């Protein structure tokens, strides 16, 4: 379980975090969304013990973040791999640092090779991997010691659909086993796939938190009815009822209907669009 309470952090003139509070329970996946500069990466770095808060507390399973590093697994936003080290050697390095023995490591590597489809490049040096393969390697290094808290900072950025699908499956599986997962992304459909609850960050704090349904409640969707030569398009908080009303009033044959319920993209735009720091 991870708990952040009223975190603040300032870098020179930039207030990176400004009262950032978030709680992620065991088995929960939280999708942390927000524009660039909203504080997501600073928060992830703080949870990983890389950055200390100016004020506030960050606890992982009850311990101060910097003292619970073996309980976290992190896939940072930027690729952080040794160019001359193979994928297997990376997993042995980070598994070894987490205290895993040879046999335990071997089993864990086999499992991740299968889950993240690392087999074809497991003995290739990281410098010779594609972007997607590097992403998978980085995720595998975060997962190798079965951490209680997973910090995944845009783990699928620039990744191919195969990488994305494999990674999402593993994240769901680990959450199912009890890991608390923080997942930042700009690809919001991923959060629906993960059945994540959502936390929206803006200007260094969480401004909205809840399930997708809770956060979408009250947001306008869109209804479009086409009569061939004419089109009626309207935004509404109740698209279904509005559509029925439009159809009842129609005096001509309807050629096409397009009903769009509010999506996470709409939520993202409505809550975070004004963040221009």
């Amino acid at each position, binding site marked *: 379980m991870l708990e952040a309470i009223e975190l603040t952090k300032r*870098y020179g003139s930039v207030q990176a975090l400004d009262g950032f509070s978030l709680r992620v329970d065991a088995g929960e996946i939280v999708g942390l969304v927000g524009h660039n500069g909203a504080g997501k990466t600073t928060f992830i*770095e703080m949870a*990983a*013990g*890389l*950055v200390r808060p100016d004020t506030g507390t960050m606890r992982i399973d009850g311990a101060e973040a910097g003292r*619970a*590093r*073996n*309980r*976290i697994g*992190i896939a*940072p936003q*930027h*690729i*952080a*791999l*040794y*160019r*001359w*080290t193979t994928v297997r*050697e990376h997993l*042995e*390095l*980070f598994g*070894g*640092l*987490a*205290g*895993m023995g040879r046999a335990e490591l071997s089993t864990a590597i086999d499992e991740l090779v299968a889950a993240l489809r690392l087999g074809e490049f497991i003995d290739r040096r990281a410098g010779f991997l594609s972007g997607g393969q590097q992403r998978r390697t980085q995720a595998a*290094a975060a997962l190798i*010691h*079965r*951490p*209680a808290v997973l910090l995944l900072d845009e783990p699928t950025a620039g990744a191919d659909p195969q990488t994305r699908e494999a990674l999402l499956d593993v994240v769901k599986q680990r959450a199912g*086993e*009890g*890991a608390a997962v923080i997942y930042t992304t700009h690809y919001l459909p991923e959060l629906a796939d993960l059945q994540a609850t959502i936390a929206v960050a803006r200007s260094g704090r969480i401004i909205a938190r809840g399930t997708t349904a809770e956060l979408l409640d009250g947001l306008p969707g869109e209804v479009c009815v086409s009569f061939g030569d004419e089109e009626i398009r309207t935004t509404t908080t109740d698209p279904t009822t509005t559509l029925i009303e439009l159809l009842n009033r129609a005096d001509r044959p309807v050629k096409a209907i397009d009903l769009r319920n509010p999506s996470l993209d709409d939520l993202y735009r409505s809550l975070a669009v004004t963040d221009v720091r």
Partner: protein
Amino acid sequence: MSVDASPRSPLASSVATAHRIGVLVRHNIRWRLRDPGQVISYIVLPMIIMLVFKPIYVRAFDTGSMSGILHAVTGPLVMFSVFTLTIVGNSILLEREWRTWDRLRTSSASITELLLGKVVPVFAILLVQQLVLLVYGCLVIGLPFPRSAGLVVLAVVVWVFTLIAIGAAMATILRSHSELGLVSDLGAITLSAVGGALVPVAIMPGWAQVVAHFSPGYWALTMLQAAVRGDALAAFGPALVLLGIGFAAGGFAVWRMARGWGRSDLL
């Protein structure tokens, strides 16, 4: 579900620490073995220079050929050991460039463990370089075998420690490999020349003899030559100066590396 982070007994804690350092040392040795070019050149080049410059140094000393031979071996040894600052610097600079240092900092390893894991292989490499060159000096150049091998090894250890500390400190403030190359190449030539590695201090102009005392190369040369002669007393003072420089530079490097570079302007 996670691996236990905090072994309870002191023994278990020590075992875990040793295990992590071992993992890091193995990782760093593997890394160095895959990029051996610099090390090889810093062993072979001084060997060639010793051989070629031996007659010049022998003639430069009026007091007898042994001082000349001693300088023919220890001069290039000190000069090329200063060049090895790039090995230390590059290994740290690459960690910054690849963002792997911060990744390591998120692991269970403490900063001390991370530094030991990084420094031990480099320390061993530099130690081997210095000892190989000294043995070469004895077997090929004609340097008499030192009266006290232990004293020589001790002197080499002190010098290697100082070099690693300076290299690490440099790597934490320089921003690129070209900057590191510039500083270490220029620094190596300047420090070793000023320190008397190229031309013996005794035949330098008066002002240069004064300036020489500000070069670690001078103290390294004085210490190593005294150690080879078996003069522990003469080696002691320079060793203290080098240790002082080493601890100051090392302390600065540790302070910088413990903070990480996540939001640094460097790189």
